[in-house]
């Protein structure tokens, strides 16, 4: 051993080749307890003042605190290092096929809520939702619109879009979607409380609702999801925007469950059109979108939305990413499954109508507009989909891109 440099080289080689315990062994030993401990930890973050309807399933914004970010990154790094996506989802997918409705109870920052939610007949996305918060607030959907009643203000805030619900039903489609996500992780372990075998499926992405991450916990015996957590960030950091601790499955539910009564003298206030702040950066590349010089807003929006649908129908991923840049946040396989859906009956096959802009707003990039469209699906059904178009002026050049859908599709026939 001649000098320090040689010694360091030998020591480095030695340290890099030390025997390590097996990944699954470490997963089973560390993760369940760490997750449980994290769940029980009381965050210092002040309770969110956001109304319930923005926190359930389609939460739109979230700020990362330094502490929260730390936790997320740590766990993500652990999972990335120690997990192997070996657990097949096929069993769980099969178990979920019969259920069209759910009842969930969970916590969100600031309270608890019970959720009744029902899917469309094809079980591709939710159609009816009622969320009853612990403070008397109620959120519900009806005829393609979303309402939120705030009892302290005796006010109903509404928007003419389905902005609450599940854009993918908690069933086979959702699980397939997760399994195709590039960063999906599957971890096996035991529930530290019950000792039952469980499987955790973790995933994160940025879509039109902003950054989101999930952990879905499956009971290995029943093969059904028994808990779902969602965070408004990519790192599963901070308090979840919704954390279920009870899920009941139903083949269907009576319509009465989704009826909501509110005081007759309640005021109605329309919610302004907005997009999540964290999606703005993804919309600001001047190479994306189309020039709008000489076009009215309506003409430009129609042109952009037509290009988007054309790309979808023709399965043209490159064009899709160019006109709707947020799609770049998803891997190609994920994009095929969730947007193009080449082998699904609910994929869009024809654009029937582009209607006048129904609502406008502003983002830091410039004006935004919601364009209602009517499309025909492969299964013959018609659906109304509102698309948000972002107008921008970058380097003196006017252009626009499609932000993405404003709410869920609303089947009209």
């Amino acid at each position: 051993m001649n000098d320090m440099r040689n010694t360091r080289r030998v020591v480095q080689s030695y340290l890099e080749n030390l025997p390590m315990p097996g990944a699954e062994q470490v997963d089973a030993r560390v993760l369940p307890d760490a997750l449980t401990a994290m769940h029980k930890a009381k965050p210092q973050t002040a309770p969110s003042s956001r109304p319930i309807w923005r926190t359930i399933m389609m939460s739109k914004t979230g700020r990362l605190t330094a502490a929260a970010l730390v936790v997320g990154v740590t766990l993500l790094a652990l999972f990335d290092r120690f997990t192997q996506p070996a657990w097949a989802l096929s069993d769980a997918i099969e178990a979920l096929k019969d259920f069209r409705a759910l009842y969930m109870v969970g916590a969100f920052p600031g309270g608890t809520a019970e959720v009744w939610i029902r899917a469309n007949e094809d079980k591709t996305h939710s159609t009816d939702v009622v969320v009853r918060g612990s403070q008397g607030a109620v959120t519900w959907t009806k005829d393609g619109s979303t309402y939120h009643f705030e009892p302290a203000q005796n006010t109903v805030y509404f928007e003419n879009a389905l902005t609450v619900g599940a854009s993918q039903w908690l069933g086979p489609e959702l699980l397939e979607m997760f399994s195709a996500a590039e960063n999906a992780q599957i971890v096996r372990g035991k529930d530290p409380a019950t000792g039952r075998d469980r499987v955790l499926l973790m995933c994160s992405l940025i879509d039109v609702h902003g950054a989101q991450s999930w952990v879905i916990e499956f009971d290995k015996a029943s093969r059904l999801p028994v808990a779902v957590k969602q965070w408004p960030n990519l790192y599963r950091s901070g308090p979840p925007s919704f954390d279920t601790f009870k899920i009941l499955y139903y083949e269907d539910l009576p319509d009465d469950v989704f009826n909501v009564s509110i005081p007759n003298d309640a005021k109605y206030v329309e919610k302004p059109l907005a997009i999540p702040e964290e999606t703005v950066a993804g919309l600001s590349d001047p190479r994306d979108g189309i020039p709008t010089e000489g076009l009215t807003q309506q003409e430009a929006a129609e042109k952009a939305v037509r290009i988007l649908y054309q790309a979808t129908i023709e399965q043209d991923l490159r064009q899709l990413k160019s006109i709707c840049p947020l799609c770049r946040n998803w891997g190609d396989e994920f994009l095929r499954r969730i947007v193009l859906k080449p082998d699904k009956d609910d994929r869009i096959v024809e654009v029937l109508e582009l209607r006048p802009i129904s609502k406008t707003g502003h983002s830091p990039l410039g004006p935004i507009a919601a364009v209602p469209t009517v499309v025909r699906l492969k299964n013959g059904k018609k659906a109304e989909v509102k698309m948000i178009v972002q107008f921008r002026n970058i380097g003196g050049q006017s252009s626009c891109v499609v932000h993405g859908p404003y709410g869920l599709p609303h089947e009209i026939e």
Partner: protein
Amino acid sequence: MAAALLNDRSGVEDVLHDVFVDFAQSVGGFELRGSLKGYLAICVANRARDRNRTAHRRGAAGLDETPAPPTDTAGPEQAAKSRELVARLDAAMAELPDEQREAVVLHVQSRLPFREIARLREISINTAMSRYRYGLDKLRSILNGELES
């Protein structure tokens, strides 16, 4: 890193478990200053040091695992030499004082700069560098001594 700092490598999982569970429990009141990697590295180092001391008090045996097989050997003779070197390094590392062993592992394996080690351990940069230098020097002496014997 836990494997490098523990005399008894069967405790690696326990150390990881305790570090991450403690960390998860402290989420609410946690405020990170500096790098997360450095913070967790120090947590692992502290746990490993506690465990080594407890084991020492109980009179536990030292390293209990077969050394890692060499990864790129040219032949059986070279393999045997590598195994022997690994065994000697195991023993040499175990002989280092805790703070020197830690400085070597944090800097060489975890690639933490001395500035970060100094901040995390609340010592001066010179002290961090000295511990590393003394540690490496002692390793060299131990290895040379054994090789020459």
